[in-house]
């Protein structure tokens, strides 16, 4: 789990590196290409608009020129005579025609037709067909809107020998009656002079009629297919993309003539350019990925090697090896070397502390030994008491003999190494103590023990009864005449040994009744406290002393309860 966590942290580091290097790169690339593209497109659009405006101006100049020719010839008496009455001199009519068309003759051929569509005069060579239908085509169109110039596209704009753009207008006599037609024809070369130079070297200009039928293209080879494709795209509501994706198209309509101009520009961003850009971006991204992985690995190694060494050292310390030290590489000061140094310092201090502790303990033990050695040998006291007994017997002082015998027995019991003794022995020692106390207190109380024979084999803690009896004598019987001390032992309902030490004194105040509670302040008498502690420590917290008042008369009882444990004997 720890390993896994380590690894994921390392992965996080690597991912962060990757993100930090890749995202700005990709964002930058996309932004750059988009901005570049927008800029290029807007530049291209601007160029297109400029070129189209120039082309529109050129068309307008032709249109206004033709319109002024129409205006000049319209209502002209000479022309009326020529077309209507056929009474004018041809040279004068030509003179008039040439004068009127002077500005435009470089660009176009002009023809005059009479009202039936028969050709009469031309500024250049005569047209192919000498009769034009007035029920059809351009003359019909011109007749529908007198005074206005109508334009017409050729059937085959790729046939460069024939005129490409036709224009016609109805002429009227001074009274407003129609008298003939003026037509204008522009050939490919003339349209080329007019429009060809206006589009840039890479661009193509396409001239369409009002219904997007092709008239002229600066590159005549593709005029038909391109115009048809664009027209179909227009009619089906699609974007104008032409025959391939390599070009963009800009459209402008000439309001005066109804003609439409389409400018073809090479696509700013061709598929090839885009592919190149994507390749470069991908290569850069790959470089970034490699760089970030290398850097990530390098950095993570720099970070994780010291951490790993530290981790290993901590494991050693856990195994109580305080000799361990984390190696600190030279000349590379950072937080981790600092941490390692602090760790080393901490381990050293810890080892020193442990050493001090050991030394202290050793000193203490030595002191205790010395103290034990300094204590008086208790056997010396017993032997002395025995001696005292014999001396007092010799000297006829029986009380002293008795007291010294009893005291010696008690002292012997006290210093015996056994912790648990049979109840029988405990009762014996108690009797010795009572005898001493009786002598001391001039037989002011009586002592009685009521213990069944089978319970006398029960093992009890040494010196259990003496402190209880002492407590009863000192506190329960003080000031009582004919005092009684009663020690009983029974088995209770739970099959526990219950030892009672009762007096016939004043009894206990109610607040002390119940389980024994150690006094808040330690006084000189620790008898009850010691016994209670011994019982609870030996047998468990549910055992201990209990204080009661006697039910059968005045006086108090101290009850000790403990499990029945029979001695080996």
């Amino acid at each position, binding site marked *: 789990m720890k390993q896994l966590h380590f690894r994921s942290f390392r992965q996080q580091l690597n991912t962060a590196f990757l993100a930090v290097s890749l995202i700005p790169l990709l964002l930058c690339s996309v932004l750059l290409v*988009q901005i570049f*593209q927008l800029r290029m497109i807007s530049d291209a659009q601007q160029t297109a608009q400029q070129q189209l405006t120039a082309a529109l101006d050129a068309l307008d100049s032709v249109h206004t020129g033709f319109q002024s020719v129409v205006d000049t010839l319209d209502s002209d008496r000479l022309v009326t005579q020529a077309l209507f009455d056929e009474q004018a001199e041809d040279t004068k009519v030509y003179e008039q025609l040439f004068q009127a068309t002077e500005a435009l003759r470089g660009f176009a051929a002009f023809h005059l037709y009479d009202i039936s569509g028969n050709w009469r005069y031309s500024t250049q060579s005569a047209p192919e067909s000498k009769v034009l239908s007035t029920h059809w085509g351009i003359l019909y*169109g011109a007749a529908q809107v007198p005074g206005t110039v109508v334009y017409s596209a050729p059937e085959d704009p790729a046939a460069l020998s024939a005129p490409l753009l036709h224009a016609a207008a109805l002429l009227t006599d001074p009274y407003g009656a129609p008298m003939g037609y003026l037509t204008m024809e522009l050939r490919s070369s003339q349209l080329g002079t007019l429009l060809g130079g206006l589009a840039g070297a890479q661009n193509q200009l396409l001239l369409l009629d009002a219904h997007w039928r092709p008239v002229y293209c600066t590159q005549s080879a593709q005029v038909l297919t391109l115009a048809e494709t664009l027209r179909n795209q227009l009619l089906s509501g699609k974007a104008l993309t032409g025959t391939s994706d390599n070009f963009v198209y800009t*459209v402008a309509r000439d309001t005066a003539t109804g003609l439409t101009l389409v400018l073809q520009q090479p696509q700013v961003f061709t598929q090839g350019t885009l592919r190149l850009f994507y390749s470069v971006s991908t290569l850069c991204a790959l470089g970034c990925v490699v760089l970030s992985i290398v850097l990530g690995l390098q950095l993570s190694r720099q970070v994780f090697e010291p951490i790993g060494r530290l981790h290993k050292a901590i494991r050693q310390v856990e195994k109580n090896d305080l000799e361990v030290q984390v190696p600190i590489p030279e000349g590379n000061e950072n937080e981790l070397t600092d941490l390692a140094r602090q760790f080393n310092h901490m381990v050293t201090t810890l080892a020193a502390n442990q050493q001090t502790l050991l030394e202290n303990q050793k000193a203490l033990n030595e002191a205790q030994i010395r103290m034990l050695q300094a204590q008086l040998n208790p056997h010396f006291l017993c032997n002395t008491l025995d001696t005292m007994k014999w001396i007092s017997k010799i000297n006829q002082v029986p009380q002293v003999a008795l007291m010294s015998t009893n005291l010696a027995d008690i002292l012997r019991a006290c210093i015996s190494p056994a912790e648990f003794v049979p109840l029988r022995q405990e009762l014996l020692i108690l009797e010795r103590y009572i005898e001493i106390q009786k002598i001391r207190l001039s037989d002011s109380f009586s002592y009685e023990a009521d213990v069944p024979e089978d319970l006398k084999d029960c093992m009890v803690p040494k010196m259990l009864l003496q402190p209880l009896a002492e407590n009863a004598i000192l506190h329960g019987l003080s000031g009582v005449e004919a005092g009684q001390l009663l020690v009983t032992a029974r088995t209770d309902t739970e099959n526990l040994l219950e030892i009672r030490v009762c007096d016939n004194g004043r009894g206990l105040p109610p607040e002390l009744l119940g389980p024994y509670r150690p006094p808040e302040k330690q006084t000189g008498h620790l008898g009850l406290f010691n016994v209670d502690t011994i019982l609870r420590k030996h047998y468990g917290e549910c055992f201990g002393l209990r204080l009661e008042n006697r039910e059968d008369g005045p006086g108090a009882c101290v009850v000790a309860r403990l499990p029945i444990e029979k001695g080996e004997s």
Partner: protein
Amino acid sequence: MKRFLIFFLVFTLLLSGCAQKQTQDFGPADGDTLVIYTSHKKEVWWPIVKEFESRTGLWVQVVEGGTNELLETIRSGKADPIPDLMFGGGVESLEANASLFSPYICAQADRLLPQYRSGEDLWTPFSALPLVLIYNPKLLSPDSLTGWSDLLKPSLHGRIAFADPAVSGSSYTALVTLLEALGGDHDTVLREFARNLDGKQLPSSGDVLSAVASGECSVGVTLEETASRRIAAGEQLAMVYPADGTSCVSDGCAILVGARHPENAKKFVDFTVSRDVQQLLQDQFCRRPVRDGLEPSASLPDLAAIAQVDYNLRWASEHRDSLLMSWAFYLGSEEEE
């Protein structure tokens, strides 16, 4: 991380969204278009469509193709753009696909010659196209080809240019006309004619004229319209109206069921039979008008002076499949020998 990605994508889309903008202000209004499927050559449909556009202001989108090819596309329902009108194609072909068309009685229908009109007005005739025989005057003397019966002569064995009737509508009409003109048992005549072709038929009707003009074949069967124009263009061809009778089947135009612009289609149909268009047909395309009251043509002989068979359009239409099957059989069996 995910949020980053989404932000990135949205950003990219926003940027690319504002890059492209196309103006569509130059096209026609929504209802001002008309889609025509035509089997006419461009030299025929172009002046008519152009004049129609400039007179009505409508925008016409023309899809060109062979009659059967176009009708097949329409029948499959996969036509794109969706056609409003089928312009061109022999009326037999139109009749055979009656379910595709919706009936319309054109304006001035009473001025149309009754023999060319459709019984149910499913289609409107456009021009009448008599069949003629052509020959190469360098290879054949004028009096050796007078009628259909000459095509069975052994002297012309293997020298006849005839288009595959399964592909060319006019060629099928010619086959029926030949049967009609010669009379007798159809199978016998078919077998004899197939044998005289020597298993050779041309892939399309246009090839007939080239084959004869180049001398590859001596005689051929084609339409008066086509022959007249090629002769006028100065090719080495001569034209004969069969003395034993020819047929004069018209082509037509028909409004399609499911047309998007039926009103515009009707305007176009009316225009095709208008006086101006019919006059143009006769004067410039050497086609016979289907309308009366026109000035007679200077170049074409009067139709009344030409012998005609009683061509049964319905019979021709109904027996097309079986006749073509027999034809293929006779032509093929000849090859196997």
